[in-house]
């Protein structure tokens, strides 16, 4: 075997809809596989929150955009002899195709390892792909690839409606959709052409079963299918938006193996080496099929298949790309059998997508052929019922399962029909509503096209819940062991049982009663192993789940001193890969300190759920019930819940009440920080200023409060009507308007109104304390003024424009807080600073989102120190002055996914909407900022920038940047107010009319004709006309792929950066080089 010495790996960049944590997992496995071979690895990935960009994973890391320019520069500099392009999602693949076409690999003599780029192109170009399939007699949907509107319409005429339109070379179905007639088609096609030059007009297979296989092939033509998966939702809903079951449940042996054989034949013909995914449509009433697509790379599905089976697909794919044969590799779970085998499952896996559509004002909530979900969960059980109910809880959307959820407004038949046939993220619950409303299975099937088998299972859950409810009069004492066992086997939580049996009372208290009764009756879950072979061979696997379908645990409790680390759970806006990084670091630290480590997590996109990260992995719910089940069984020495974000943190009080050995800050203290009222009075007690706030229940009370603090105020409703959960309002009109359209206010649903301080700096402190003494910390500064959620903010580390005096004051405040809360472990405080005055916004007694960013930039691993403190180890107070000493700057920038959320208003507010982030390094703040902006998809404008400056305060802020643009030769377009203001200040700009002025030259026309390279649109106020106009500009910019900035401070920083630096000024410097500075 001719192994390369140095290999470059392309990462996938920031997490975005369609490309999330799964690629951190794939890339980490690939790096592990190469490392084992003694190959030097270089990673390009600006996603600083990932595990793969941690110390000691790759030999060196470039925090740079995964774009052809930067990758070529890195190749030029590093001179690798091999490159892996299949582990960084579509981003890496598209980049590789571009580099291949430009002859870059040839030029620098870099060998593409694994699947040849030509095979990738063959799968990505629809025309070639179809032709390839035809060569071997494999069927694909009748379709025509077109590049013009005219051809698209003609093709549709030929194929007949309904039609699906797909964009080539696109992430997770971007630019795809269904059309039932010419009008719908025209609209759809126009949009699709904005994401791709080539689109596909195709016969619609809506209602067919959707089935996928993960296929592995080595260079010797040996092929296996590691896993097949069946979508609960039939064709018409993107697989990323579907509930997916592995293995398939409704396919006969003939169907299963027919598709398997076709997959193998296809993959051989395409010449793939490594791993790929093939998707089929299968006729529900015959064995007719179509191949939908082949993804010639590791994918979301392959990550899921790895976790579903225990077969390390990415690891094996990396080894195969070096030239190993499958038979030479060992099954890393059993360590004795071969990697050339197909896992046999003795359980079922259900994946469910997690959406966060509620965060977006105006978004179209229907789910369909394009992806909108931001995360996913995987549940394991021995029946579909058990797994899906676990999964519905794992989504952490407040649901208790399929049944026994909080009563909501009853849906009438029309509403149920609509939800069933035109699904949004609530459809699964509409099925239960339909059952309750007396719909037959056949009716539900007609409306949803979901296979009867799945509906039968759900109906079974519904019937069991009725049986429970029927025993209400007899209460808990009357509950028979058999029924209890049956409902537990069907995945009912103790809470669901409590609700059905005891009613909607104090559910948490009732849950404890059910738990006690259940334990008394001996109805306990058993722990089972996932061993890839259904127990055929002995396996030393540590990959575990719990089930009520069983009488025997597969193993005994861990008897050595052990620590349980609670994982981050589902990725959603506000909590994602950064907490996986924290969890993995915590586990590694605990292992290094000599503890046996046990992880509980259920997110298939994570590295923490990789079987070799911990000594035991429970792929399980992070609910009070399940965590207690596991703690009862394992009796660990301690539980860490401060490294996984808010889901585990929320369990603190209940676990403490149940005497769980929680490590670190006392849960009672955590509660005093989480509870707004308690926190406030403690701040008062400590003499620490906060923005004034009040919990109010009427408009009059709010107006009175505003008279005291003045406008603007921040409103945080507890019951949200539309997307805008939080907002800043500047006058009475806006206040009334907001309450009318967005929020419900009553004694039951109070509103928190806070003083909003304008033009205040936001500064964050991430720190570790030991028994109330801070031992280490990092301070970072937001580019934007306060008012942008810290998760959406752009951050400098170390701070660039904060006075030393301010830092000193912050530290004193932080020390007071750490003392008062007797903090042991990680915490984060957010501060406001204006005119030297400091206020505290909030304190989280747990690791924060910025932990990986500041830890990696500073080289001071805060989570490692925090974990050591949690474990009771003495950690020396950090005396180094790294905070100011760094000879370089790190900038963290948010990634938005607005393109994928049709209708959503792409504007930054106080509620978080970004889906991911990057962190880049530079010798100067400008350089780091520019690199990070390029990493999240912004481009340096070629010729023209539109400025729609918003309120006077931001117009003023944009004056100097506009002047700079003019000086650099850019054309500056401006909307009316801004145009006038610029003119008055001597800055020439070209006037464009507002969308509603319907007059040319109009902003919208210019955007659609791509005459504008960058849009700066600062939202002005909440009046309807302004909202509509601004919204139209922002949305059109996003829909037509034009860069958009909605914050004046960030716009200024960005303009400053690209006007002073050119691409060639952006240094191609590795992390090691920065560290050595």
């Amino acid at each position: 075997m001719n192994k390369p010495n140095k290999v470059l790996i392309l990462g996938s960049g920031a997490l975005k809809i369609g490309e999330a944590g799964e690629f951190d997992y794939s890339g980490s496995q690939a790096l592990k596989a190469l490392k084992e071979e003694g190959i030097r690895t270089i990673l390009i990935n600006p996603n600083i929150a990932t595990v793969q960009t941690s110390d000691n994973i790759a030999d060196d890391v470039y925090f740079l955009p995964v774009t052809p320019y930067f990758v070529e520069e890195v190749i030029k500099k590093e001179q690798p002899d091999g490159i892996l392009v299949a582990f960084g999602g579509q981003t890496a693949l598209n980049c590789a195709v571009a580099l291949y076409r430009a002859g870059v690999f040839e030029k620098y003599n870099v060998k593409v390892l694994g699947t040849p780029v030509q095979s990738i192109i063959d799968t990505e170009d629809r025309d070639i792909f179809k032709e390839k399939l035809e060569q071997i007699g494999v069927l694909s949907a009748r379709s025509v690839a077109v590049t013009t509107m005219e051809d698209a319409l003609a093709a549709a005429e030929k194929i007949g409606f309904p039609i699906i339109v797909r964009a080539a070379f696109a992430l997770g179905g971007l630019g795809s959709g269904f059309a039932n007639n010419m009008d719908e088609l025209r609209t759809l096609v126009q949009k699709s052409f904005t994401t791709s030059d080539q689109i596909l007009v195709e016969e619609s297979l809506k209602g067919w079963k959707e089935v996928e296989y993960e296929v592995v092939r080595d260079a010797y033509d040996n092929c296996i299918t590691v896993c097949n998966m069946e979508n609960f939702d039939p064709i018409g809903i993107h697989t990323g938006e579907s509930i997916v079951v592995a293995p398939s449940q409704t396919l006969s042996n003939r169907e299963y193996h027919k598709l398997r054989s076709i997959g193998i034949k296809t993959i051989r013909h395409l010449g793939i080496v490594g791993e790929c995914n093939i998707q089929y449509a299968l006729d529900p009433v015959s064995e007719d099929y179509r191949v939908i697509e082949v993804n010639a790379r590791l994918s979301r599905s392959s990550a899921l298949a790895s976790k579903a089976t225990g077969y390390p697909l990415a690891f094996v794919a990396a080894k195969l790309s070096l030239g190993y044969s499958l038979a030479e590799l060992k099954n890393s779970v059993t360590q004795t059998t071969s990697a050339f085998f197909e896992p046999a499952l003795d359980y079922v896996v259900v994946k469910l997508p997690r959406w966060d559509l509620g965060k977006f004002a105006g978004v179209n909530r229907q789910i369909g052929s394009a992806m909108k979900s931001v995360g996913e969960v995987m549940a394991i059980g021995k029946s579909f019922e058990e797994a899906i109910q676990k999964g519905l809880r794992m989504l952490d959307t407040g649901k208790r399962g399929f049944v026994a959820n909080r009563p909501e407004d009853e849906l009438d038949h029309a509403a149920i029909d609509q939800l069933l046939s035109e699904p949004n993220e609530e459809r699964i619950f509409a099925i239960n509503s339909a059952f309750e409303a007396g719909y037959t299975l056949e009716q539900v099937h007609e409306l949803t096209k979901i296979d009867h088998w799945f509906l039968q299972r759900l109906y079974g859950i519904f019937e069991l819940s009725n049986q429970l409810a029927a025993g209400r009069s007899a209460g808990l004492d009357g509950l028979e062991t058999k029924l209890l066992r049956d409902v537990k086997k069907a995945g009912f939580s103790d809470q669901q049982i409590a609700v059905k049996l005891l009613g909607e009372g104090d559910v948490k208290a009732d849950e404890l009663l059910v738990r006690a009764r259940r334990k008394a009756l001996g109805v306990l879950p058993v722990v089972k192993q996932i061993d890839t072979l259904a127990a055929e061979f002995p396996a030393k696997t540590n990959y575990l789940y719990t089930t009520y379908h069983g009488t025997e645990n597969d193993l005994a409790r861990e008897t050595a001193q052990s620590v349980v680390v609670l994982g981050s759970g589902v990725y959603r806006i506000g909590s994602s890969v950064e907490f996986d990084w924290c969890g993995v670091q915590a586990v590694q630290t605990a292992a290094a300190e000599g503890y046996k480590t046990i992880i509980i997590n259920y997110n298939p996109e994570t590295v923490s759920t990789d079987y070799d990260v911990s000594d035991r992995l429970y792929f399980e719910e992070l609910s009070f019930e399940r965590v207690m089940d596991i703690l009862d069984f394992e009796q660990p020495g301690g539980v860490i819940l401060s490294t996984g974000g808010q889901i585990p943190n929320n369990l603190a009080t209940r676990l403490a009440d149940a005497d769980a050995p929680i490590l670190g800050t006392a849960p009672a203290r955590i509660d005093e920080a989480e509870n707004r009222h308690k926190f406030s009075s403690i701040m008062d007690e400590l003499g620490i200023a906060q923005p004034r706030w009040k919990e109010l229940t009427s408009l009059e009370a709010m107006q009175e409060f505003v008279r005291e603090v003045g406008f603007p105020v921040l409103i945080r409703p507890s019951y949200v009507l539309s997307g805008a959960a939080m907002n800043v309002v500047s006058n009475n009109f806006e206040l009334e308007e907001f309450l009318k359209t967005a929020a419900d206010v009553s004694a039951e649903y109070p509103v928190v109104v806070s003083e909003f301080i304008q033009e205040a700096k936001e500064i964050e402190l991430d720190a570790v304390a030991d028994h109330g003494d801070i031992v280490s910390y990092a301070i970072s500064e937001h580019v934007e003024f306060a008012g942008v959620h810290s998760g959406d903010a752009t951050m400098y580390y170390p701070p660039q424009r904060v006075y030393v005096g301010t830092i000193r004051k912050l530290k004193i405040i932080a020390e007071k807080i750490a003392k008062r809360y007797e903090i042991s472990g990680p915490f984060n405080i957010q501060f406001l600073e204006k005119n030297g005055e400091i206020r505290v916004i909030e304190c989280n007694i747990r690791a924060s989102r910025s932990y990986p960013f500041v830890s990696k930039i500073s080289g001071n691993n805060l989570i490692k120190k925090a974990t050591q403190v949690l474990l009771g180890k003495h950690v020396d107070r950090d005396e180094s002055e790294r905070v100011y000493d760094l000879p370089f700057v790190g900038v963290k920038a948010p990634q938005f996914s607005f393109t994928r959320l049709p209708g959503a208003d792409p504007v930054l507010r106080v509620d978080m909407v970004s889906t991911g982030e990057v962190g880049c390094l530079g010798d100067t703040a400008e350089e780091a900022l520019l690199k990070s902006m390029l990493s999240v998809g912004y481009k340096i404008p070629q010729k023209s920038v539109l400025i729609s400056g918003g309120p006077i305060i931001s117009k003023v802020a944009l004056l100097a940047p506009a002047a700079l643009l003019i000086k650099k030769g850019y054309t500056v377009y401006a909307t009316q107010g801004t145009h006038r203001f610029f003119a008055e200040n001597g800055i020439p700009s070209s006037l464009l009319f507002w969308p509603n002025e319907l007059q040319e030259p109009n902003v919208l026309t210019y955007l659609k004709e791509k005459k504008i390279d960058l849009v700066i649109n600062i939202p002005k106020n909440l009046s309807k006309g302004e909202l509509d106009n601004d919204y139209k500009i922002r949305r059109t910019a996003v829909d037509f792929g034009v860069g958009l900035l909605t914050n004046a401070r960030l716009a200024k920083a960005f303009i400053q950066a690209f006007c002073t630096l050119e691409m060639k000024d952006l240094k191609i410097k590795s992390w090691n080089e920065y560290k050595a500075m």
Partner: protein
Amino acid sequence: MENTKQVKLILEDGTEIEGTSFGAFTSSAGEVVFSTAMTGYPENLTDPSFAGQILVLTYPMVGNYGVPGEELYESISKIFESDKIHIAGLVVNYYSEEHSHWNAAKSLGDWLKEYNIPGIFGVDTRMLTKKLREKGAMLGKIVAETDVPLHDPNLDNLVAQVSPPDVQHYGHGQHKIVLVDCGTKTNIIRCFLERDVELIRVPWDYDFTTLAYDGLFLSNGPGDPKMCETTIQNLQKALQQDKPIFGICLGSQLMGLAAGGDTFKLKYGHRSHNQPVKLTGTQHCYITSQNHGFAVDTETLPAEWDMLFENLNDGTCEGIKHKTKPFFSTQFHPEAAGGPQDTEFLFDDFLKAVVEYKNQ
């Protein structure tokens, strides 16, 4: 669930497991074996190789797609692997009473009832599988109302029970193949009939050496190969000649025995759709469907024989071949049904050998 009668599964080591009855509410004894196949219960249950066995399925949900209606193809079943259910009993974790599939004609439970075969669900099949893995396949029984004695089917001549009473002819192709039916799966017949073959299906103890044929095929079948003394004797005569011979599963063991080698009982057998085998001396590997409790002991093979395929998991013999003559066999099932179809090309290889032989 309409059927909530409790039944017991009792193993020879004294283990008693309670579960719920489905299929026939009756008692039955046999050898308890497990299969890790995730699909294909209609195929498995009708596979004559399972005769006398109580089958434990490790896949947790069974019955999902019901059971198809019978259809015939050239007078043999188009769907099933024989004309009846051969297992002695079925053990599963979860029985899917309601089923869903476009070609389903009945539920698995009703089908079992038709053949008076008991099923039991609600069993911790993983625990049971581990027990069988550790202690080896065991005798056992499903007990409904009346107890039955344990019974070792390996002491019976199971082949004699499942082999047809007389000779049958299929197809009109140009290659005349004799199929020695020790309990053949119908898909083997289908595989031949798709390949220009005239098939003469003869009983296990039939002296086929009296027939005119171009190639000889030895089928799969249940139980201990050493029970088939007559077949082995007939086979020994055929091995003296040069006509191509192909054996599958039991047929492979018979070939080994006839060649002068020995067979042994595996601790718990191979019953699954994911067995990896490697073509000896190459990098070529295949995923195969298997169902056997005995295997050829490669150490005992005479000098003129080689191991053809090797099991990648445990190194056991997955097929043998003669060094010079066109005789070969596989322990696995190239005809699949159920399971992966990756090695069906071996039928082509066999017929190629037949053509070569005829051309000589």
